[in-house]
């Protein structure tokens, strides 16, 4: 069995006290619980503080462009469906620059796990508002306070009937670990939005702020009840539900492509005889 040590220990470029550290820890523990070896995994990330995470564990990694982790992950998964592909990046990366890919990934229901470090701010570029920043939050880029309504990734994902929609909190490591394990086990697109304090730029949504508000969904909560999920999805402010908010089984994108039923593209030989027959049609 794989041990957490195999995932290594690395020096990070994060600020002391940042929520990213505990998320990294939960990710590793979730991988161990999923009995995955480093080489079976592909982490794909974008650019930002969160997007550095894959550099801090042993795995295959593609650290791409800001906002473009999902399409890279999609391409890689289609090329080799045997890879366990995990997208890990920030809220700005995934919901801001990458918003269109987020919608498309949900629609495809491709078998990926998407872990979003949601610190409600752009960390790496020094504290501008992110799509999830709350209204009125003042930054140097928004000196009058944010005028837009925050993006609620959970509500959008549930509205689109994404097949696995969850929320975690970096400050509740065991819970998050379990979520990650379940998301990996889920066949289809699995979103985990992880609340993450940014000690440098978000002085509002701090560890204490989250801690006070976050609660885990009760055992009775039925994540397959879409209407209930929709209602839960908009709960925010005084209390913030954590856990699997919505879940549904539907075929993955890969499962619907005939060509992938014979395995990944990587192993496929090019059949020039078949091509010859195809060419004949042009005569």
């Amino acid at each position: 069995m794989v041990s957490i040590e195999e995932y290594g220990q690395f020096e990070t470029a994060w600020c002391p006290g940042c929520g990213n550290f505990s998320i990294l820890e939960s990710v590793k523990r979730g991988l161990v619980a999923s009995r995955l070896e480093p080489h079976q995994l592909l982490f794909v990330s974008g650019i930002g503080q969160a997007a550095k995470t894959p550099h801090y564990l042993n795995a295959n990694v593609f650290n791409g462009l800001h906002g473009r982790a999902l399409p890279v992950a999609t391409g890689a998964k289609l090329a080799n469906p045997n890879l366990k592909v995990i997208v890990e990046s920030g809220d700005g990366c995934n919901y801001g620059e990458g918003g269109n890919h987020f919608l498309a990934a949900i629609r495809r229901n491709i078998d990926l796990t998407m872990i979003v470090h949601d610190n409600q701010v752009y960390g790496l570029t020094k504290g501008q508002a992110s799509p999830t920043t709350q209204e009125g939050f003042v930054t140097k880029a928004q000196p009058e306070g944010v005028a837009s309504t925050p993006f609620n990734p959970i509500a959008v994902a549930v509205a689109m009937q994404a097949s696995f929609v969850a929320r975690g909190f970096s400050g509740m490591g065991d819970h998050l670990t379990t979520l990650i394990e379940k998301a990996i086990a889920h066949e289809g697109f699995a979103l985990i939005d992880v609340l993450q304090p940014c000690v440098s730029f978000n002085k509002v949504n701090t560890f204490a702020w989250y801690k006070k508000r976050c609660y885990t969904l009760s055992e009775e909560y039925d994540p397959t009840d879409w209407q209930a999920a929709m209602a839960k999805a908009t709960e925010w402010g005084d209390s913030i539900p954590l856990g699997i908010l919505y879940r549904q089984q539907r075929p993955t994108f890969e499962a619907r492509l005939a060509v992938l039923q014979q395995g990944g593209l990587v192993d496929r030989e090019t059949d020039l005889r078949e091509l010859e027959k195809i060419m004949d049609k042009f005569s």
Partner: protein
Amino acid sequence: MEKSDLNLLIGGEAGQGLLTIGDLLTKCLVRAGYSVVVTQSYHSRIRGGHNTFALRVSSKQVVAPRESVDLLIALNEETVNLHRTEVVEGGLILADEAYGIGSGGCLQVPYQELSEERFANIVAFGVVSHLLGLDQKLVAKTVEDAFGKKDSQLVEKNRLALNDAFNWSGQQAVDFPKLPRVADSGQRLVMNGNEAIAMGALSAGVKFCAFYPMTPATSIALNLAAQASRMGLVVEQAEDEIAAINMAIGASFAGAPSIVPTSGGGFALMTEGVSLAGMTETPVVIVVAQRPGPATGLPTRTEQADLEFVLHAGHGEFPRAIFSPGTVEECFWLTRKAFEVALKTQSPVFILTDQFLADSSRAVIPFDLKNLKPIDSGIETDPSNLPYRRYAITESGISPRLVPGMTEHLVVAGSDEHPVDGHLTEDLNIRKQMVEKRLRKEQGIIREAISPVYSGDDRPDILMITWGSSVGAVLEAAAQLRNQSRSVGTLHFPQVWPLVPDQFMAYFQNSGEVVCIEGNAFGQLARLIRRETGFAVHRNVLRYDGLPITPEYIIRELGN
């Protein structure tokens, strides 16, 4: 009377079936052994507008469109009005008798008498075939192949319509030159540029294609999609072009040779991804099917104005190769070559084509697939140096490439500057080494570079240089000038980057006037040549009105 070179122009509204007639004629003529060049001109709409399908056919090899029309096949009156003046002395207009144009130079077809409306296209096809002296059996077979044999009633009706068309035509006293018979030249294919690119990619082992629809590139993806399950590839319509190129990079990273077809505006959205491919050293083939810009421009017309854009697309510095096929055959072979270079040098490689070539069907000798060497993926499974380092510094600049999940070794690719292991670095010495490593790969690309193709006299008075789809017009213009006893050379660049001066400078030095002929307003190849060699071409012949360059156009412009 015979004439070895005829230019047919079919005109009408979108949706009137001019594509059906054009395609049937093309196929039939090629089967009969003739050489063809198709030029399609259409509006950016689905129904209506004024579209044309020009079909130049010859018993000799032809490679360019021609302007004057021998046979105008008018599917509506507008076509007669718009194109009448293009018809040569002794040429003919084929039109519905209902238009009442009179019989001077016109064969008025009683479509209504001859068939139900839905078979009018077949009738038109039949009449033209008869005029050209095509064998009725061949003609019938072509229709059958096109519409399938399943619906026996349809087959029968088609046969009847054709019969009527041939009978009727046989009774007309028309003085239209027949095509000389040609010897059987063996099996040939009818293929346009985009089809050849798709087939070239399949032959090269493409396993992934991501695209967002955009004229005139879309049909490359559609041709691939049609064969996806048979050839074992995934073709995915992405949510946007940014996704398309990033998906392709992801797929390629994971081991699937990938292609991305697009046009200028879509390509613009991919330039960040191009830079990512350069940095992560991920092979990817990008087809840019050019159309007139800027912005949306003329979406269904042709131009060659994206050379400089493609050459410099993406921030930062990294090597690339750009192929510029000028014929359907080159579309096939250079697409293969593009994969070869991309995989060998782990770089983004481009194919620059355009609407004219994309839609231009030609007769092509079947590609000899049996003797094709498979293209090396460049993927290792057993790295010679351990621990495995994706970006190991090498003399060639090419580092050992593994794909994730296929071995126990971990593959780490980074868009940030990275040390050999692919992780993050802020070490500026490493930065310098990595820049130099990446740029060294250009030497490998140069070694693979295809020479410009020269033809003509040894020391011509005039040398015409060109690239991409304009080559046919240049070759024919040269032939015409030679007929006027002028000494002419032509130099075609099937690859516009990297330029290797040793391959072509001698031609410049040995020629009189050097004229660069291209479908843009800036004279982009000419500027590039000057940048790379200091040589300033003496004259430019440029076209930027949305139409392909023709031999006549060149000769007119040279006359000035």
